[in-house]
């Protein structure tokens, strides 16, 4: 099981929770399970073709998945998966 850290703008999909625990062996699976638990959240993170939106970063532990295997990056038990906006906002 991985712990997904949710940024403030997406907490309306998680009933205000900052973290959600889901299973998944890859980031792709984790996001699918996150979507099942919190419907509507995935289309904020990924575009229509299923790719990560340009301005959203996903980290497994402290590594940006864009520098690993993108959505196929492996997620191990107890890993922290963080969804972090590329920017801090105004």
């Amino acid at each position: 099981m991985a712990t997904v850290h949710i940024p403030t703008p997406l907490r309306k999909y998680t009933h205000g929770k900052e973290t959600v625990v889901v299973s998944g062996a890859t980031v792709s699976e984790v996001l699918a399970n996150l979507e099942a638990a919190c419907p509507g959240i995935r289309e904020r993170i990924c575009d229509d073709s299923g790719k990560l939106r340009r301005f959203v970063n996903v980290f497994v532990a402290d590594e940006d998945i864009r520098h690993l295997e993108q959505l196929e990056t492996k997620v191990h038990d107890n890993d922290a998966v963080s969804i972090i906006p590329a920017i801090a906002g105004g």
Partner: protein
Amino acid sequence: MARDQLFASLRAARAVVVDDITQLVGNTPLVRLHRIERECPGVELWAKCEFANPGGSVKDRAALWILRDALARGAIRPGMRLIDSTSGNTGIAYAMVGAALGVPVTLVMPENVTAPRKQVTTAYGVEIIYSSPLEGSDGAIVLARELVAARPDLYYYPDQYSNPMNPGAHYESTAPEIWAQTGGRVTHFVTGIGTSGTVVGTSRRLHEYSRSIRCVAIQPDDALHGLEGMKHLPSSLVPAIYDEGVLDDTMWMPTDEGWDMSDRLAQEEGLFVGHSSGANVAGALRIARGLARAGERGVVVTILCDRGDRYFVPLQWEKHYIW
């Protein structure tokens, strides 16, 4: 004054001689976007080069006005530090103005602001305190308020989101410059909301020159967006200086449209600007296109907030992020 004469006198003004860097704040150039304009025949598209400010962004104006006012009122006493929450550009502006005027600066910013912004502020000697990357700029605001409440003797907190000197800077400088630089012909002013200082202060003054000037604010179209520096008000703490009454309209800008326009500005106009600037020009173009379709003429002015080199470029060889 004839157009060529106006331009000649303005060009000469660039080679000024000053006593300190704060005197270079403001009086920024206005550039015509001839190529982007091809999509809106009959309408002029102009952009104010706020990246030409000495700290590199439009925020120099607010920082200078805020600090000068605080010093004049005796709100900053010896031994005190200026502290504020900032997504970056205001921090850089405070850092520069603080260094020039001898005021030590502490900045609270989210960990996920871009690396160039962290590096530039530390070069000026500021102390940075980081807030959660998951909480965005509202998290930085909350943390700054907590720090100030704990040490009111140490910190002067200008609070850019509430300080009337923020829109005041634009009321007193940005608006008169736009009025003069367009020879009083400006018909539309459109720009994004960050703290809302620029759009509120500039619009307020432009409406005093002529109530028929249409002033439009731009916001990101979603709470989760990539337009750094801009604020999605429906999901945020609304700045105290925000005054919807001075605006004629609000436009909602998708991140992709703003980012794509930043790319176009660099490639088609030679203007390498940030994403909020891209969003601003995308908004200005929407208005200009609408006028052109209706067979109307117009002089649409927007703001180029900062340069593109302040933005996040992931380097392929950086496997581990150092926030």
